[in-house]
């Protein structure tokens, strides 16, 4: 059952050291930046972070990395023009990297959320990223065995929630949010608006509230976030 909490600090309270944290966003689109700052303030450490990237500039995920709270990052695209925080930590051997093709990253979390024990993916066959993994030929095509990625916690950003945790997102800020929401034991969502049940058309709900545990409204989100989304 979803709970509406008062602020971001309350939302991330109680996350133990050593947790695997799924963090939504593609670059900065959909990155739950206020929840990440709350995670930084909480001082939790030794985290494994799952995100598409490894931080941009010095804000958000990059700040979490810079603060030394991340032991390992599982992502598809760490190296970017502004990934200098990660680059430095990685080269200094201070953060471990598991590189996963983007579609396998999404599907491994989808599998976790859907109770699938493992799956055979055609992505990565014959490449260094499939080394050491079980291969199988099915109907004449080669596949590699991939295991789920389950989060202890997911931190995601949506546009609006109702108090039951039903979510709608905004444009390409949706990205990993709906998949991560299913794949973690505790899913924590920041939104710019919370409405009463019935305030979101059931036909346009993207993440049903069953996947959501904590909801926090973040004030002062750009006015853009108030417009343009269905529902």
């Amino acid at each position, binding site marked *: 059952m979803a709970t509406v909490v008062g602020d971001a600090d309350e939302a991330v309270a109680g996350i133990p050291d050593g947790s695997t944290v799924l963090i939504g966003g593609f670059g900065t689109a959909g990155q739950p930046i206020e929840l990440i700052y709350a995670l930084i303030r909480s001082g939790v450490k030794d985290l494994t972070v799952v995100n598409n990237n490894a931080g941009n500039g010095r804000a958000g995920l990059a700040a979490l990395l810079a603060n030394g709270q991340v032991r390992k990052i599982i992502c*598809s695209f*760490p190296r970017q023009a502004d990934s200098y925080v990660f680059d430095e930590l990685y080269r200094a051997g201070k953060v471990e990297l598991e590189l996963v093709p983007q579609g*396998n990253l*999404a599907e491994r979390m989808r599998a976790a959320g859907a109770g699938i024990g493992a799956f055979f993916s055609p992505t990565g066959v*014959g490449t*260094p*990223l499939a080394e050491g993994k079980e291969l199988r030929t099915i109907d004449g095509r080669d596949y590699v065995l991939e295991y789920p990625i389950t989060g202890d916690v997911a931190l995601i950003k949506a546009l609006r929630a109702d108090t039951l945790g039903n979510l709608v997102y905004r444009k*390409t800020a949706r990205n990993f949010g709906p998949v991560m929401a299913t794949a973690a034991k505790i899913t924590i969502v920041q939104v710019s608006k919370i409405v009463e049940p019935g305030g979101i058309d059931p036909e346009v709900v993207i993440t049903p509230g069953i996947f959501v545990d904590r909801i926090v409204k973040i004030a002062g989100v750009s006015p853009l976030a108030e417009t343009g989304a269905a529902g």
Partner: protein
Amino acid sequence: MTIQLSFDRTRPLSRDDLARLVAADIPPGSYLNLGIGQPTRIADFLDPDSGVILHTENGMLGVGPQAYGDDIDPDLINAGKVPVTETPGAAYFHHADSFAMMRGGHLDVCVLGAFQVSFDGDLANWHTGAPDAIPAVGGAMDLAIGAKEVFVLMSLFSKDGSPKLVSKCTYPLTGLGCVSRVYTDYGVFLLTDHGVVARETYGISRDDLAERLGITFWDT
């Protein structure tokens, strides 16, 4: 497929002309994904009446032109994290659905950049293998094996003059036997079951090109 454009065959193609040439070869009505970098330029040369619908792996079909000024919306970006616009009929979806579109064989064409392509269609475009390089794969491996047709857009020769269309890739692979066509400044190559066909060349004769690549082209 017909070539709808004609270019000066006595010179290598400029980057814009190369993008123009690929754009003209995208079948009308295709669902198309354009890789980060040079392939993104192809969008600028697509015929608006072609009905081609652009897919971006971060969860959108119907990607419109790059956004500028007041049209920039931080929630609306493409895979290269460039602000874009939406076209009428656009759709948003989450990452697992986006990659199901590739792996599930729903995406008609993708155009990717490359470090190397082998004569039998192996692709290397994610990692130089240099010991100090930080690898990043993004959606390249999923696209390479997922799209029905994978076109590569690249310069034919690297800065040191060595060919990037090779008998065997020396860089780490992105996908096996996945590339069907290679568009380069010096020529367009079809990678068929019979061998490599040089569909046309620019600024070099077919024979000279075959010699530089160390290949015997398969003649249609």
